[in-house]
């Protein structure tokens, strides 16, 4: 294997891990509320900036920053659900309306971060310094850790939604509100919790991303589009399928960057998604149509 190939695989792994974390957060909100949360990327940005403030500006360390960034995003998620999503639960056009309201949230957060933190580029420190060499290709320890953290996070998320009573109640509220209420699940609480969980995950992912890229108000918005591609390609449902699709997109992106270059990569990714959906309307792993 050539060095370029190995570098591509490593890059695909890192990208796939980040997309998997983003897409699984999106998918939690989609499967419980039936809302596509366009503010997800902005919540990542918010998490990264809050982490920077705690870790760098106040000098309290990255661990504290990570916790604060996650919590701040979760809190913002609760506010978004309360103010911009909940009023429209019973509206027939809820899906369309929440596209607009969550887009509004995205813009408000983006502009807000610009106002609060200013235009100067910032960066978060890495979890750990140093590099690893795999078959002669270098990968930073930080990126290697992301590759490890992603599956752990996904398994934890899966265990929560599939094995705990609270997690199951979120899925139940998503599948049948009436039946959920009748067995004693307070559906609005379940929705709020799902949003907080998803947003917290976004904040955490944003902190990880903020050590690889510079912090800008649109830090999360560009990968958000890829994460949405992943969710759709995975078949809008199970976490396993979402994770699988994330790595497919991650590897494909790394490969396309190597072969056709950065300029055409996004277009080709979208084209791939459309072609896949023509032949497999329920996504890569979505089963029969």
């Amino acid at each position, binding site marked *: 294997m050539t060095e370029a190939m190995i570098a591509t695989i490593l890059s695909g792994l890192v990208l796939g891990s980040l997309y998997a974390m983003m897409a699984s957060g999106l998918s939690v909100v989609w499967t419980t509320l039936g809302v596509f949360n366009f503010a997800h990327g902005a919540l990542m940005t918010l998490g990264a900036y809050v982490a920077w403030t705690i870790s760098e500006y106040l000098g309290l360390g990255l661990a504290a920053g990570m916790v604060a960034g996650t919590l701040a995003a979760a809190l913002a998620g609760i506010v978004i659900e309360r103010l911009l999503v909940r009023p429209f639960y019973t509206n027939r056009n809820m899906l369309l309306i929440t596209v607009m309201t969550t887009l509004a949230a995205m813009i408000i957060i983006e502009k807000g971060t610009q106002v609060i933190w200013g235009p100067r580029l910032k960066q978060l420190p890495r979890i750990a310094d140093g590099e690893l060499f795999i078959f002669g290709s270098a990968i930073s320890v930080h990126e290697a850790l992301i590759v490890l953290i992603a599956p752990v996070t996904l398994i934890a998320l899966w265990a929560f939604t599939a094995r705990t*009573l609270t997690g*199951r*109640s979120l*899925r*139940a509220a998503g*599948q*049948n509100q*009436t*039946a*959920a*209420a*009748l*067995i*004693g*699940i*307070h*559906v609005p609480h379940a929705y709020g919790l799902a949003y907080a969980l998803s947003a917290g995950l976004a904040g955490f992912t944003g902190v990880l991303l903020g050590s690889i890229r510079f912090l800008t108000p649109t830090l999360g918005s560009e990968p958000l589009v890829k994460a949405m591609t992943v969710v759709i390609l995975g078949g809008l*449902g199970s976490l396993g399928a979402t994770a699988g699709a994330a790595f497919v997109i991650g590897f494909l992106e790394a490969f396309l960057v190597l072969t056709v270059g950065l300029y055409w990569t996004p277009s080709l990714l979208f084209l791939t998604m459309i072609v896949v959906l023509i032949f497999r309307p329920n996504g890569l792993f979505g089963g029969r149509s």
Partner: protein
Amino acid sequence: MTMLLEADNITAGYGAVTVLRNLSLHLSDNESIGLFGPNGHGKTTLLMTISGLVRPSSGSIRYDGVDITLNRASDIGAAGLAHSPQGNTLFGEMGVAEILELSAFTRRAKVQRKTQMERVYSLFPRLAERQKQLARTLSGGERQMLSIGCALMCAPRLLMLDEPTLGLSPKLKEELGIAVADIAKSGTPLVVVEQDVQFLLSLTDRLYMIEHGEVVREIDRTDAPDHAEIMKLYFGGDSDD
């Protein structure tokens, strides 16, 4: 005799449509009641109003001595007023056992989860054979059993069943009837909605006939009408129109 459920002068509907009109009924602690009447005259709406899924515009509902008229559906369920709704589709993407476990969601239900689970599986052996099967792939009869099973997992103080045998074969209907009778015999009061008056008389102590959202007749099991008279009840109103 203490009252377990009292609905007093309930008026309710959907938006501008009024379905229930000053409807009152009651159920004491140690009896079961049946509701019957023509299609579309408000039986399901009545159960949904009691469960907190539909808000009455006037009237009051007391359950176990407490006014629950404006309570949330989830709190009413948590208080042990279980409801197996008509045509319940449950949670399609979950398995049978997972749904049953989840249905013991509230604190009072959780402590009885194991015993109730065994009870559900012994009442409905078909469910025990299909623990991993997804709810959306169950047959109509199996889904009905699961719906009743879920309501039992809530550890009910009062169990409301909306047309539990709708669309089932006579054999399956009998099977379900035996299971429901078993539940009643174990001391859980029932509110059962059914079209088949004989079936209701075999399960419950008193019947209410509901027409145009009102109680038009109350029937005691001890002086129940015969088949011909029941037919007249159902069809007699139509010839007056």
